[in-house]
């Protein structure tokens, strides 16, 4: 420790001090470049340039290591003394992202000029990532030999992370995300990207049926004048209409009839199943404080039906809220270039994969709710995904390794170069 303090900066062996200087210099350079570019968003070139630069990077990294591995600077690059400040520098940027809301336009000129509201696409972020990849690459190469159990675990964690960083950085520009609005019984092959450009896909989609399964609607009590929901920190403000009787504040509710889809004729509701019909219920409400009983219909309403509340007294009414979706799905026929077609179900959390595209259920016409005849599908193509997943699986294996074998037995001292 004492000779560490008296050592001149940049005199070998380098330590945390040099690590900090290099990391800070990289961050400063990054922010300077960002400001010089007027806070512009950076985009990496797409295929094949990303692949070529990736190969060049790997080539330089490996050959530098092979030729210079005895050099003290390279040794230092493969040590914790370089790694820790770099990890902290990266953490610093991520902390900024944790405080400044991302992907929105900020008024503050500092935020704009340094690109703080879209940090992932700025120079400091990209440079620190590059630096981390260099460090991870060198330390991975360094610990490839000797081939021991400990080094194998080391490889899983460090090369795994390297692969994730490498393939997400290079692959980001090849990711295509397109939205397609599909209408029932119409074929569609055009989709639009984030900027609204229309892209023609090599496959056509015909929406056969869009359907929503809903939870039972909730009921709640609102103030007649303000329309605000009655809140009490110690009590539940909502109840799901899935039972025949329950209590809400001081009211006891009995559900006489529940209609999942209904229409109104005169003063009553009847079960019908046509676009715009809505859930409704006939309820009997007993005020447990004074015993008054009121009964009547409540209805959550839709784009054709007025919502209906039940007035309990001068101050409060009982209302039924719109039902929340439990599951929504599209039954579609997918027609590919070669003329084959097949019928599939696409659902939230259950996308469908075909010819390199993954098709997700994204949204629907929310105003029409369960009667929507339109479904929004999202098409995602990410050719680098297998590389990213390989990295993720290596890291998972690495985590399991750490779980089983834990900390190095000797506490690490012997491994330190």
């Amino acid at each position, binding site marked *: 420790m004492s000779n560490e303090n008296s050592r001149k900066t940049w005199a070998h062996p380098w330590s945390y001090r040099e690590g900090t200087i290099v990391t800070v210099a990289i961050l400063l350079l990054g922010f300077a470049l960002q400001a010089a570019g007027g806070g512009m968003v950076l985009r990496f070139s797409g295929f094949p340039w990303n692949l070529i630069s990736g190969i060049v990077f790997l080539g330089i990294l490996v050959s530098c290591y092979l030729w210079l591995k005895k050099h003290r600077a390279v040794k230092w690059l493969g040590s914790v003394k370089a790694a820790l400040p770099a990890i902290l520098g990266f953490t610093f940027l991520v902390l900024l992202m944790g405080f400044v809301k991302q992907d929105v336009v900020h008024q503050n000129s500092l935020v704009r000029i340094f690109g703080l509201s879209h940090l992932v696409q700025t120079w400091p972020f990209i440079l620190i990532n590059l630096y981390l990849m260099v460090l991870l690459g060198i330390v991975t190469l360094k610990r490839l030999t000797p081939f021991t159990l400990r080094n194998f675990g080391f490889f899983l964690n460090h090369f795994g992370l390297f692969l994730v960083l490498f393939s997400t950085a290079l692959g980001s520009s090849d990711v295509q995300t397109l939205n397609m609005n599909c209408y029932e019984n119409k074929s569609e092959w055009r989709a639009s990207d984030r900027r609204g450009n229309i892209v023609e896909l090599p496959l056509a989609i015909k929406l056969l049926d869009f359907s929503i399964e809903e939870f039972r609607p909730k009921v709640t009590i609102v103030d007649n004048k303000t329309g605000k929901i009655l809140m009490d920190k110690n009590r539940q403000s909502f109840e799901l209409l899935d039972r025949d009787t329950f209590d809400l504040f001081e009211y006891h509710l009995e559900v006489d009839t529940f209609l999942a889809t209904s229409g109104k004729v005169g003063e009553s509701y009847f079960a019908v199943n046509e676009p715009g019909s809505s859930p409704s219920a006939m309820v009997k409400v007993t005020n447990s404080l004074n015993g008054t009983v009121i009964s009547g219909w409540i209805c959550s309403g839709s784009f054709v039906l007025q919502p209906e509340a039940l007035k309990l007294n001068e101050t409060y009414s009982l209302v039924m809220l719109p039902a929340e979706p439990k599951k929504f799905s599209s039954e579609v026929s997918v027609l590919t270039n070669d003329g084959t077609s097949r019928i599939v179900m696409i659902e939230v959390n259950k996308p469908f994969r075909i010819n390199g595209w993954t098709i997700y259920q994204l949204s629907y016409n929310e105003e029409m709710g369960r009667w929507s005849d339109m479904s929004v599908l999202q098409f995602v193509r990410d050719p680098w995904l297998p590389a990213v997943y390989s990295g993720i699986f290596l890291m998972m294996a690495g985590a399991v390794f750490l779980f089983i074998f834990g900390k190095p037995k000797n*506490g690490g001292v012997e491994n330190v170069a």
Partner: protein
Amino acid sequence: MEELKMWLNFPVVASFAIVLWLAATGLFLFSASKLLNRLAAGLSVTGTVALLVFVIMLWISIDRPPMRTLGETRLWYAIFLSGIGLISYFRWKYKWLVCYSLTLAVMFLSVNLNHPETYDKTLMPALQSPWFVPHVIVYIFAYALLGASSLVAIRILFVKQSGKAISGPVSMADNLVYLGFSFLTLGLLFGALWAKEAWGHYWTWDPKETWAFITWMFYLVYIHYRFRNPLAHNKAMMILAASFVILLICWFGVNYLPSAQNSVHIYTE
């Protein structure tokens, strides 16, 4: 059904567990007798099991995993924390750790007693996935292990001031961090795989993801620092204590950050 109702009386079950855990803590602290310590262990196991039964019953009755709200995650935390304290007691006979974890678990349950939960039964489609349960359980287990490791760190920092020798507890902190960190990594990666299935992208730098990542980086710093500077206990323990602050921000604080409005990860209160 009636039996289910009885079990679902949270104040009763929670008070039961709290009383048992407090009694156990008292016995652990003030008695050296083997028999009484066994009794203490038995009491706390009973408390933990009672709470576990409650959570399972709740799961059945609301027909969705009870992992959606902050209060529900506190329940799991209380279970895991008391469980980890007990396991480490059986394994290493660290009485003080089991006392700390039980006290912390009591604290979490008391918070829940003061904020009665509203058990909303609806669950948005994006959360209905086989990934939901492993993702949340693995995370909370990681939080509990890392929370315990920070207790060890704080304890070491205090003992150090009184000039006693330490070393056993440091390696215990390491063990807990390595276990907790491997779970944290798995939780993070499960989350990424799930996000890809549900939203089409594995990482979107959503505020919760961002803070989870920051937490992960802090423990990464601890692991690397310990590896390179195995003798600098004090600084390492300070890193560990600081990491816990970040972890708490990630868990509770994110809800209140301006950067986090409209996040899918916000627990409902």
